[in-house]
């Protein structure tokens, strides 16, 4: 099976992830984007980059995002605040998270985003409805495998010292997604449009393995490449997700600031 493949960079700033103060030089928008661009150039490809709207209050971040868009990458929406329980929030809160980021990105790059991915894959039918009403064409927020549970457990552990974020992890209500959601793309029809859902790529089988760059750090690269090969053979559409931490080293972290990413150690 050939088909199509794409690379998605979920541009989670380190400021958002670890609470660094506003204005602090954020390597996610600097070293990471330079390295991402170099890799794309080397292989002659263009990717999709999903930005957090609030991060674009920083002028240097806006400039960096414009540079990416100018280089031919697609720019998508990753919500305004990156709340990891987005799918469980009220419709009005969701609408704000989608729209505020939507307009900030459109203002920054001159084109409105048409793709969305929820923070930490927190999705719900209510969020689909909001995205359709905002004119979105697609969403890649579904995580259709039981690996979601250990992922969220680890996510909770990462936020033990940030009670507000920990509460948001525990507030999630999308526990049934791994067993109820299709692993193939499907369309959701709403009153004002259609949203195409592209779930995370998962290998076949009841305990399908979700394949994104983080699995290499967790399970080892030999297994990762085998799962990646399987998923690419089995899936017509393969969306490979990476994060800024995948392109960082410990030396990139501002001196004296904490992080909870073992991959940088």
């Amino acid at each position, binding site marked *: 099976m*050939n*088909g*199509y*493949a*794409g*690379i*998605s960079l979920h541009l989670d700033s380190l400021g958002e992830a670890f609470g660094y103060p506003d204005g602090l030089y954020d390597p996610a928008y600097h070293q990471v984007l330079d*390295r991402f661009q170099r*890799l*794309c150039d*080397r*292989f*002659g*490809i*263009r*990717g*999709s980059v999903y930005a957090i709207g609030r991060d674009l209050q920083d002028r240097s971040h806006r400039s960096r995002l414009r540079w990416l868009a100018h280089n031919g*990458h*697609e720019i*998508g929406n990753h919500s305004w605040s990156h709340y990891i329980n987005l799918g469980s929030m009220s419709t009005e809160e969701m609408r704000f998270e989608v729209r505020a980021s939507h307009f900030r990105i459109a203002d920054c790059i001159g084109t409105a985003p*048409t*793709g969305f991915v929820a923070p930490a894959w927190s999705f719900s*039918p209510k969020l*689909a*409805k909001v995205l*359709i009403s905002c004119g979105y*064409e*697609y969403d*890649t927020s579904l995580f259709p495998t039981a690996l979601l549970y250990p992922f969220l457990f680890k996510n909770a552990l990462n936020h033990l010292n940030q009670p507000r974020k920990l509460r948001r992890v525990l507030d999630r209500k999308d526990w*049934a997604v791994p067993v*109820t*959601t*299709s692993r*193939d*793309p*499907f*369309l*959701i*029809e*709403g*009153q004002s449009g*259609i949203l*195409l859902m*592209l779930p995370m790529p998962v290998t076949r089988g009841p305990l399908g393995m979700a394949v994104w*760059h983080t699995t*290499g750090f967790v399970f080892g*690269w030999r297994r990762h*490449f085998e799962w*990646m*090969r399987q998923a*690419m053979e089995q899936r*017509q*559409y*393969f*969306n*490979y997700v*990476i994060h800024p931490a*995948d*392109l960082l080293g410990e030396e990139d972290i501002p001196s004296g600031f904490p992080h909870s990413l073992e991959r940088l150690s």
Partner: protein
Amino acid sequence: MENCFRALVESGKRIVTVREMIWEARMAIAPQTVPEFASIA
């Protein structure tokens, strides 16, 4: 990371942005009702 990019490029798949991939997928699949999303329609 470089090895992952290489694996993608050498997979034989056409490498595109997600938006381009979505449009290809949209041509290939018919609208359907997925139970948990049925209330939206």
